[in-house]
């Protein structure tokens, strides 16, 4: 049997072309555009070196976007993974209605992120939102907060919504990991008289490292790319307090500064590749150590 005949190259050729033209070509062009002074006012794209990147470094919107992206990614990744782990441990024990509970906790991940954002925009409204109605019962002062409208609470609120949205997703992946651990380990540990915490530390945690690696990588990449949620909740405001890298790209495009926008998008790309390499490398090493 001739493999070239049985598995012809034309099987991958069409997707290869689509992928190259629609995904890779824009990446290459984006890099080139980021070195041009292309704006909506001049169709000419003339080379201007690192000018756009200098503009970004001096732009307070981009600077807050950069910082906020890091804060958002780190905090949501830690909280979602921890909460997902806790939920998965709880829903891995035998109990009634376990499957129904799993479905309910996963449901937020099924909804469109934009729609989740809009739902929470209503819940976080200053006077009439559900959250403030609840707080009002305990303390009228707390219940008067404009959670998304104040620079001091806006980012925290966005992070909270993302944790609400994403913890169930983490839970499902971690649950699958937990189920793949053979129960023999736990039985042997029980015979040896290990406590629950000892079993968790010496069996569950080390064997879960590959799964946690996947969960953390997914959350980090997703967090760095966050866009829909911010647009739905705050559009980056108030001021630049919830601006992230992908919303700055959208805004530069909206202002007609395509060159600068391309540079901002390029920064996001480089940043994602760097972080991915670091996270993946670090976690794989931890796996090996265990």
């Amino acid at each position, binding site marked *: 049997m001739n493999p070239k005949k049985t598995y012809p190259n034309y099987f*991958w050729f069409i997707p290869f072309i689509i992928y190259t033209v629609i995904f890779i070509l824009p990446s290459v062009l984006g890099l080139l*555009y980021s070195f041009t002074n292309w704006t909506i006012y001049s169709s000419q794209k003339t080379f201007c070196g690192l000018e756009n990147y200098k503009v970004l470094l001096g732009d307070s919107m981009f600077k807050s976007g950069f910082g906020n992206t890091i804060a958002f990614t780190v905090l949501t990744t830690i909280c979602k993974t921890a909460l997902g782990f806790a939920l998965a441990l709880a829903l891995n024990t035998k109990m009634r209605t376990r499957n129904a509970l799993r479905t309910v906790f996963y449901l937020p991940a099924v909804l469109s992120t934009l729609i989740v954002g809009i739902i929470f925009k209503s819940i976080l409204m200053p006077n009439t939102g*559900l959250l403030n109605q609840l707080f009002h019962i305990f303390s009228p002062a707390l219940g008067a907060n404009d959670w998304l409208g104040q620079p001091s609470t806006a980012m925290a609120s966005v992070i909270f919504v993302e944790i609400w949205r994403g913890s169930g997703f983490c839970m499902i992946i971690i649950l699958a990991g937990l189920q793949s651990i053979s129960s023999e380990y736990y039985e042997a540990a029980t015979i040896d008289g290990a406590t629950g915490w000892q079993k968790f530390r010496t069996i569950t945690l080390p064997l879960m490292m590959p799964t946690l690696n996947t969960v953390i990588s997914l959350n980090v990449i997703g967090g760095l790319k966050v866009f829909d949620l911010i647009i739905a909740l705050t559009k980056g405001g108030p001021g630049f307090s919830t601006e992230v890298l992908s919303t700055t790209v959208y805004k530069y495009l909206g202002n007609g500064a395509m060159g600068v926008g391309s540079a901002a998008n390029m920064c996001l790309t480089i940043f994602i590749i760097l972080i991915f390499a670091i996270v993946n490398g670090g976690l794989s090493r931890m796996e090996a150590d265990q």
Partner: protein
Amino acid sequence: MKKQKRRRILLAAVMWVLSLLVILPMVLVILNSLKTPAEADIMSMELPSSLRWENFKVVLIEGRVFSSFLNSAIITVCGVLLSAGLGTMAAFALARNRSRLNKIVHKYFMAGLVLPVQLISLIEVLKGLHLYNKYAGLILVYVAIFLPMTVMLSYGAFQSLPKEMDEAAVVDGCTPMRLFIQVILPLTKPVITTIAVTLFMFIWNDFQFPLYLITDSNKWTLVMGVYGFMGKFSSQWNLVCAHILVSSVPVIVVYLSGQKYIVDGMVAGAVKG
């Protein structure tokens, strides 16, 4: 034993109380979608005084939900079929014929798992191809960005099938295309379903690409429609809630019917492009 049983019931009770955090926002949307504008002004958990089904009628006409629904359906169905079809075909050839060229192509596809899309230059490319602001353009974008995920998920499944089967089929005079469609696809149905359901959820729920690539509001998808509607009727939460419900029901139905497959797909490494 009795003590353990009591503990389990207690844990289940605690989990159900916690699940209220997830359930309450959804109930809030359902309740308010049936209220009058004045009642929905305060988004409360109170029951509506009377069930206003007209809200859904208003949304269907003013929010043009019906036409957005069709747009979403066309884009999602075409996107899922094309992405899944082309991606699994490619993965099959790459997994089976591991020549040097094919290994390089496989690595090249996998790069897309991490890379974000350069949106501004993507618009330029689509404009150059006369595909900007068109369904076909958006669908091709989905094919391109979900190709890495589709290939990754199906590659392993194809590798684990015994090669002898292909040989038997080829000896019997099977063409490559028939081998793939009639022999291989049926044997990898669970993975294919996982891919299809996952793609359905991603494409149906997507917001960023239609926002950048579709400027004509007649071509908006449901999720884009919710966003536009929100801008227009931001004070009328009853209508916004009705719109949200209409837009979310299809994806929830697909999720509930394909639930057991989704989990596998997510686990295998749902790395969204």
